[in-house]
């Protein structure tokens, strides 16, 4: 009986050691992939940082309408932020390559699912960036137009338009990632409706002002037939 127990233990130990021995190349491969990707990430980040600094990226970002990237990462300039994102992406890719070196089915499935998910992530990031650019451009257009029309609510209108486009972009991105499902749609509907209502109120109040000014001008014209607009530009 003791012989059989000893044999079973020996078999178990052999199987365990064999499995550990099978895992070892995978672990080494993972470590190697991580080290290589870290070195690569460091090199790419250094080159990218140098290129962006020579390109005066931080100032250009402010010109393109992103003066508040400091709001997202107070201690980081846009250059640092971008280089960090690129570096960590390279490390993540290295990690995924290392994981797939394991022979097991689970890690492979995990990696395959992650790679299938990647296009959606990229699409969401593109939607977010495009949404942010469009939001800022439209907000600026509305702000300048409203100020030139003498609307006191110019800033409110501009902020409203900015959030309207931003909320739309964020919702599209989240929907693309498949997070949240129905709750996201519901939240979007409430937020979008709220912003539209706020804008409608602001435009209504602003228009009231505009219409009353225009009526005043008309009244003064009819009250005094000699009224003439004295200012000419060309």
């Amino acid at each position, binding site marked *: 009986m003791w012989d059989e127990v000893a044999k079973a233990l020996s078999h178990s130990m052999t199987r365990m050691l064999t499995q550990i021995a099978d895992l070892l190349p995978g672990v080494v491969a993972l470590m190697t992939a991580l080290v290589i990707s870290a070195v690569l990430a460091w090199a790419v980040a250094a080159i990218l940082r140098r290129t962006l600094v020579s390109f005066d990226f931080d100032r250009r970002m402010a010109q393109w309408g992103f003066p508040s990237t400091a709001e997202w990462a107070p201690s980081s300039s846009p250059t640092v932020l971008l280089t960090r994102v690129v570096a960590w992406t390279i490390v993540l890719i290295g990690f995924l390559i290392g994981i797939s070196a394991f022979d097991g089915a689970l890690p492979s499935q995990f990696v395959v699912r992650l790679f299938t998910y990647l296009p959606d992530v990229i699409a969401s990031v593109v939607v977010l960036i495009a949404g942010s650019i469009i939001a800022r451009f439209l907000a600026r257009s509305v702000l*300048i137009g409203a100020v030139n029309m003498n609307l006191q609510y110019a800033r409110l209108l501009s902020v409203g338009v900015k959030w309207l486009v931003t909320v739309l972009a964020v919702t599209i991105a989240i929907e693309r990632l498949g997070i949240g499902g129905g709750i996201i749609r519901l939240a979007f509907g409430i937020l979008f409706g709220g912003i539209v209502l706020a804008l409608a109120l602001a435009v209504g109040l602003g228009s009231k002002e505009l219409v009353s000014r225009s009526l005043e001008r008309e009244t003064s014209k009819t009250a005094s037939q000699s009224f003439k*607009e004295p200012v000419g530009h060309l």
Partner: protein
Amino acid sequence: MELDAIPQPELDQIERVGSADVVVGIFDLERLEPNATAIAMTREGLAGFSQPLRAMVVSTNGAHGHAFSPLESAGDEKLSVFSCALPPPGPAETQQQTISNAYRNVFAVGERLKVRACSVLVSPAQMATREWIHRLVQPVLDLGFDLVAPCYTRHTMEGLLNRSILSPLHRALYGEQLENPMGPDFGLSGKLLQHVLRQESARRRGAAQFPPLLASIAALGGLQICESHLGVRAQRPTDWENLSSLLADILGAAFLEMEERAAYWQRVRGSKSLPRFGSRGVPPPDAGTVDLHSLVESFHLGTQNLQDIWGLILPPTTLLELRRAARLSEDQFRLPDQLWARIVYDFALGHRLRTISRDHLLRSITPLYLGWIASYALEMKGAGPSEVDARIERLSKAYEENKPYLVSRWRWPDRFNP
């Protein structure tokens, strides 16, 4: 240059005329006059010349039912007048496009007929008289000038874009003291016409602005420029709602021209006055009162809301001075000349560097321009023509004094930031 817009029967008639001494374009942008009115005006305008002349009149045909008017000639031995009628502008055309097309067609006809002088009138017909044609053509034909720019008789609050930006900017850049560098009514020689057309063909096809600023082309080509007093010019009612579009159109063209000619104007120092013919005449009395409150209010609204945008274009010292101006009470409100000149230069630089979208940049100057008008109106309350002239002279001097600032920022936009 192609004569695309001219109907074939008219083209055939132009071919039959062969050559002419003068081409006169008469375009009223507000109402279409019958072609006969333009012919009669030209005949009377050119009647005073002692030399025999062949003239071609180009105008839009306001007579309904006629695609073109027949070629005609006054039976006078000294003066033969032929006419060419263009179809009226399309409903979708903007005023700027209509002016561009008018100039394009007159220049094309002038080139085809190898004229010695050319005159284009785009001011309203009730103001543009036969004397205008004579005053624009005579310095070219009799005195050999290449460009005759207009001087109009205006009251204090008219022509403010010219007074505040276009004229002093042209003077500082090209060293020539012109009251209305962008016309729009001009007289020019055949030599300048050829010069403009050569430049146009060298430019990329489909360039929006035609003609390019004639005054700067003449200055660059070393051609003879003079001014001629034309008289009172009817003022179009101000469309306050679309003022920013007007500013974007006019300043956009001026800043583009500035960018193209940077190599030339950076070498120009000082300015000279130009020969001026005729007398100024008595300006019409000031009509109505300026609504100073809404002008200052527009400026305040701009300083409250557009700081972020102006911060991308203007240096911090200028922003500080603007904030200081915004704190002044309405009757004390002033925008100093030095500050205004630097603001215009900074906007020109921002336009060149594309600091922000060009349309945004040009439209965001509107509250500042309204602030300048308020400041000017307060200073010029009850002032006579000589005081107005002296005021504009001081402003022009400020532009000239600040030109080194413009040149430094233009050359080293990143390094030079006072």
